[in-house]
């Protein structure tokens, strides 16, 4: 058996800090199944009050951009400052986040 066959599948862990906040990537754990992954995520990433909700996702389910994508994906945004919202004035009475 190769080391890969002996080791458990990898899961990505996302934690939510508080209600309404997005789930953010916290790290990854090895686990045999989804419930196992959830428990391992709880023990590794949620034992210091980090969150109120956990997601675990099989790492193989994630499609990621590659370093070669960097040019065509991200460079075109460099010179398009008008896409940022700072040119708008925020009306009085609107809560600033």
């Amino acid at each position, binding site marked *: 058996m190769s080391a890969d066959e002996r080791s458990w599948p990898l899961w990505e862990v996302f934690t939510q800090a508080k209600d309404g906040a997005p789930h953010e990537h916290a790290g990854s754990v090895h686990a045999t199944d989804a419930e196992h992954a959830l428990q391992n995520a709880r*023990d590794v990433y949620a034992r210091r009050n980090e969150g109120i909700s956990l997601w675990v996702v099989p790492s193989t389910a994630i499609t990621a951009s590659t370093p070669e994508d960097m040019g065509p994906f991200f460079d075109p945004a460099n010179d398009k400052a008008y896409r940022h919202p700072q040119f708008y004035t925020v009306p009085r009475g609107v809560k600033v986040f």
Partner: protein
Amino acid sequence: MPNRALFSALLRLGDDRLVLGHRTSEWCGHGPVLEEDIALTNMALDLVGQATLLLQYAGEVEGAGRDQDALAYFRDALEYRNALLCELPKGDFGVTIVRQFLYGVYSVLQWEALSASTDTTVAGIAAKALKESKYHVRHAGEWVIRLGDGTDESHRRAQAAVDLLWPYSGELFMQPADEAALVASGVTADVSVFEAPWTAQVQAVLTRATLAAPDVAWMQRGGRSGAHTEHLGHMLAEMQIVARSHPGAKW
């Protein structure tokens, strides 16, 4: 007025968690995988934390100036009141997990009952501990199924663990005679009533895990009266050595 019966009852509750917590902590740095190492260490800390609260209260009830550290580090095996199940060596991962499960189910039943204690300190400790113990059962229960219904080797080891530990389960449900007044006044709970729900819950998981409880004619006993296995003395020697070598040391 010191309440000897309540002091004894608190020692039984606290010593179970302290001894099992210490046994679980022996996995720290030795877990089969990183995630499980952290999980077991978390649970060890939960148990030691529960024991701290219980022994602290025991010391107050006793009124002899002993705090939780004095009770943990300066009593000998004869004075410990934990069930024998808790003091057995940690064994392999199968033994540790099966024990964590058997004791966890019992502990949840006990905390649920004690959450309604007429003693507000006991009720407060129970309410906090209940959440922790529920997680211990969830964690260990999943593992029992995974090991029992896993490979030939994991099944063999899990079944061996059940066979080894089962004769020590009966002591958990032996209600001490000196607790009758406390039970009557709703301070503590009669542990003998937990046996039926415990058996049902444990059997359900064992069945899913393709494991079987052995037929046992006689249950081991003795821990509640201080008659321990040879293992507790060795464990306490290691657990107490620093506190006894440097009494009163602070860090």
